[in-house]
């Protein structure tokens, strides 16, 4: 589907009044789970999934590789899941802190419904603590500290549909920590023939990921670096579980794209990028897109220099040399590295400027010039 400028403006203009419309949508019948969420005002209280009960009212969370073991009244690292008397609850079910209509290219997803608008939601909380987070005012906060709006799953789906957004994106903070909300919303979305895209750090355990894969259509993973030191020092996470998630998604039917935010001197070593590209080519094949994004200083390291464009170009060349077919450059509008090129004939099959599609030379899923199949979800 192509989103031209007229459609874009129409959709964006429609968005201006959606806040009002949401009030009218409150009459929609709520699912039992959502009713439970309504009970709280700023915090919801719905029993979480993927946890084990332990003696002495303790619990062990199995959602992400942190495996937080918590006593009564304690919260996990993410700050949004709490043990209450031996029962584990999510506190952010239906509590959207941020909701916007964005082009799907902004996520970025380049091989998934190009030009589509994504109704994007996020709650407070995150299971890592990146020093360069763009959305730290929601991701690094507890739900009590952010202004949220109660948007149960069916309201999200209803609203997305009413604004002609074919995709619902779970994004901005870390959707893994609002797993139940994301999962239920994706089911609601499917009932309305909408697709679901998850924008995640991939720091999730295989079991919940396996279930999520059955409910969504696309996952974009932020691979923060290809070494554990970076994950330890700047992310407070682990690399290996993320790599396992990438392999698991690649084995499924879900469309996968990978984004690598290049921070100058911290994760831009050419040799490391070469190793990563080799690993991707060997483990998941050359056809999943890899995006190198330009770092714009944010949050705790907002005084670091942005990434030089030449660094990104060099890293892209390395990834292409290692056999990856679709390597993109992000946050540099107008750069040729934003376009999709056919790996067979080298002709541009999708031309972009920033988040805007300029031209699509695809016939179905094939290059219009040489009929090479270009992998992705195109319609």
């Amino acid at each position, binding site marked *: 589907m192509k989103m031209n400028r007229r459609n874009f*403006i129409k959709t964006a203009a429609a968005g201006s009044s959606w806040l009002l419309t949401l009030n009218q949508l409150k009459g929609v019948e709520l699912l039992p789970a959502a009713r439970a969420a309504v009970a709280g005002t700023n915090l919801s209280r719905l029993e979480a999934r993927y946890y084990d009960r332990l003696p002495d009212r303790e619990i062990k969370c199995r959602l992400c590789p942190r495996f937080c073991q918590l006593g009564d009244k304690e919260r996990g690292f993410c700050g949004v899941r709490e043990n209450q008397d031996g029962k584990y609850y999510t506190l952010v079910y239906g509590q959207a802190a941020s909701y916007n209509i964005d082009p799907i290219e902004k996520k970025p997803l380049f091989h998934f419904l190009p030009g589509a608008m994504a109704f994007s939601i996020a709650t407070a909380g995150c299971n890592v603590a990146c020093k360069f987070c763009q959305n730290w005012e929601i991701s690094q906060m507890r739900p009590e500290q952010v202004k949220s709006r109660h948007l149960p799953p069916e309201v999200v789906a209803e609203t997305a549909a009413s604004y002609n957004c074919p995709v619902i994106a779970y994004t*901005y903070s870390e959707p893994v920590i609002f797993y139940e909300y994301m999962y239920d919303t994706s089911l609601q979305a499917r009932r309305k023939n909408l697709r679901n895209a998850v924008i995640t750090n991939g720091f999730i355990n295989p079991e919940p990921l396996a279930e999520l894969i059955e409910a969504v259509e696309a996952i974009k993973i932020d691979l923060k670096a290809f070494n554990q030191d970076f994950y330890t020092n700047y992310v407070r996470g682990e690399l290996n579980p993320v790599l396992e998630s990438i392999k698991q998604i690649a084995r499924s039917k879900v469309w996968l794209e990978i984004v690598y935010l290049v921070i100058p001197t911290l994760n831009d070593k050419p040799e490391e990028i070469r190793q990563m590209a080799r690993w991707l080519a060997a483990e998941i094949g050359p056809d999943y897109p890899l995006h190198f994004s330009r770092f714009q200083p944010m949050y*705790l390291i*907002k005084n670091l220099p942005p990434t030089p464009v030449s660094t990104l170009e060099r890293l892209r060349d390395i990834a292409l040399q290692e056999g990856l077919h679709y390597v993109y450059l992000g946050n540099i*509008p107008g750069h040729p590295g934003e376009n999709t090129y056919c790996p067979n004939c080298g002709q541009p099959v999708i031309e972009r400027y920033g988040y*805007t599609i300029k031209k699509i030379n695809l016939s179905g899923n094939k290059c219009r010039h040489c009929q090479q199949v270009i992998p992705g979800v195109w319609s």
Partner: protein
Amino acid sequence: MPSLPAGHSWSLELRRNSYAFLLGFMATSFQILILREFEASLFANELVYGLVLAFWLLGSSLGSWLIKKNISARFSPESLYYPVLGLAVILLAWLRFFRLLSGYLPAEAAGFWPVLLISFLISIFLSFPLGALFVCNVHWLNGRLLTVYQLESLGSAAGGLVVYLFLIPYFSNWQAATVVILLISVTIAAFSSSRKARVAALPVLLLASSLWFFDFPAQKLAWQPFELVASKDSIYSRLQVIKSQEQFSFYTNNLLAFNYPDPQLAEESVCFSLLQRPEAKNILLIGGGLNGSLELLLTYPEARIDYVELDPEIIKLSRRYLPEASAILDQARVTTRIEDGRRFIGQTSRRYELIISNLPEPSSAQINRFYTVEFFAVIKERLVPGGVFSFVVPSSGNYISDEQASLLATFYYSLKSVFSRVTVIPGDNNIFLASEGPVEDSDQALSERWQQAGLKTTFFRPELLPDRLSPAKKQYLMDRIQTVKEPRLNHDSHPISYFFSALLWSKQFKGPELKVLSQLLKVKRFWLFDFPLLLVLLIMVISSLRKKDRLVQYLLPLWLMGFTTMVTEIGLILAFQSKLGFIYGKISLLFTMFMFGLYSGSKLAQKSPARGSLKLLAAIQAGFVLLLAASQLAKSSEIEAVYYLLLLTMGVLGGAIFSVGNTLLLNWRTSYGLGYALDLFGSFLGALLASSVFIPLLGLDLLFLLLILLNSFGLIYLLVKDLA
């Protein structure tokens, strides 16, 4: 006293007096240099400035209070002064490598608690022995406390002048510290009678010389893994240049000032306003022109641009590292003016179609001056009818928190109080546009103007504008701004923006400081204004009822003087900067006037026959009340001499109170450090609270009223005591 045997020769007298003078010289020099190094190495907002200064005064206060009498008897001045000089070198080095040693990246926001800890440790480690040395000097001069105080004040005035006028303009912080240590060591060695003491100067000088020679290598090391290619301590800040591939990043005091090339920020700051008035012929750009903004403005063939930049060194560095980009400054259509933007806008008679302020966000009182109602009013006067004013502030495109919304609301409503039309562009940076004429923010209209103007831009383009300017995003932003409860206006005399900025800064670190600042914002006026008054009044009433309570009687005026002079000094300097601009040499002159006043006042009072009477103390206190009343009226004056006169008079009265108060105290009890400690403790509270709490939350008007009332109570208390 081991090293200063009794004697009456001129040279011996000079030697004995020189130590007190050197103490003042040393204390003020190091205070200035440490504070500058703090600014250059760590993020320093008003809260941090206040903390460093407050801890410094607290350390001095504790040092003078806790020092044991036998220390001065057991040690010679040399054996105490040299280690303090050595300690200063070590602390300066520690400050520079604090980030590296603590595992922070260069320029990473370190957080409130690490900053608090390092400011506490460094200030206390150095100021504690300096406070103790004050009392040692009194012992070495056989109890002549007032002489020590006067010499120390004179030394402080001299130290301030030397550092501000002769060292900082020509040397880096570390080099200036080397010169200060050299001057003090050589003076001590020259006056010392023992050869051993002279030799002891050598290791100190050796240590100090390492500051001189390893200044740049140390900075390079501290910036690892980034490549530092140049550094220059200008009179205003430390300027550093980092090179990454083809890109240069310019830093001022460890904060990213601009990158080159950086089309995104240049286009953000220029295009939205430029396309409001495509016919503009006269444009004023305040700051930040070298990131590409000037180049962009010059794409209009008829535009003539006045570019105002505070720091000439930043232009020199740009010419060296960005020769092509800075060649634009030589174009005939660009006039570069090196001066404070606020001063320029106040004095120019020119009128502009566009005025673009390209300055950092208001994280300090110094920058806050460019975001006040009064500044906006002057801007409006300098615009032609229908001209446009714009500035950019960092924000968030996806979510606007309550703290961010409060800050944005302050800008919005302050602008709205001056201009009839104010528009805010959403995104990761918010662009404020204000005018009396039409302001356009629709993507279609701006895209058409962009095409007509033939701008060659990357980020500001019709392809990207619909997302940036979607009605939903504009609506969300305005909803967040307009639903802020009781938005506050940002005034010169009531600067609130930097408090909101500190709130937002503290939020990043998720510590209890956010709660403290948030609570302070909710605190009713009673707790900041009425409660301190009632508390002091209560102490005075209780003390008045206890007829033999001389301790409070003598110490309270000293505490009050310390508190009042510190708060008034900060308030007047802030008012000076708002009205007359930030003029480097003149700020140092204000400080020197005050220190010289302290010396003169103390000397005058010492000579007075009534120096030991409560009546004289009450009379000086009455003078203080009058001075504060005058300051209340004069703080909006635009006559420079008024500020010098006020600070000189305040110094004179402060010195006199110290002199008389201590004479009374020492007549009653021999405790040399106590009066000095109370004076410094008052200053500590003043430094801690003035710019971080009182000025933003009460405003200068109420703050001066608080001081007038506090000092009036002090006057009544002294009169009652005198009658009793």
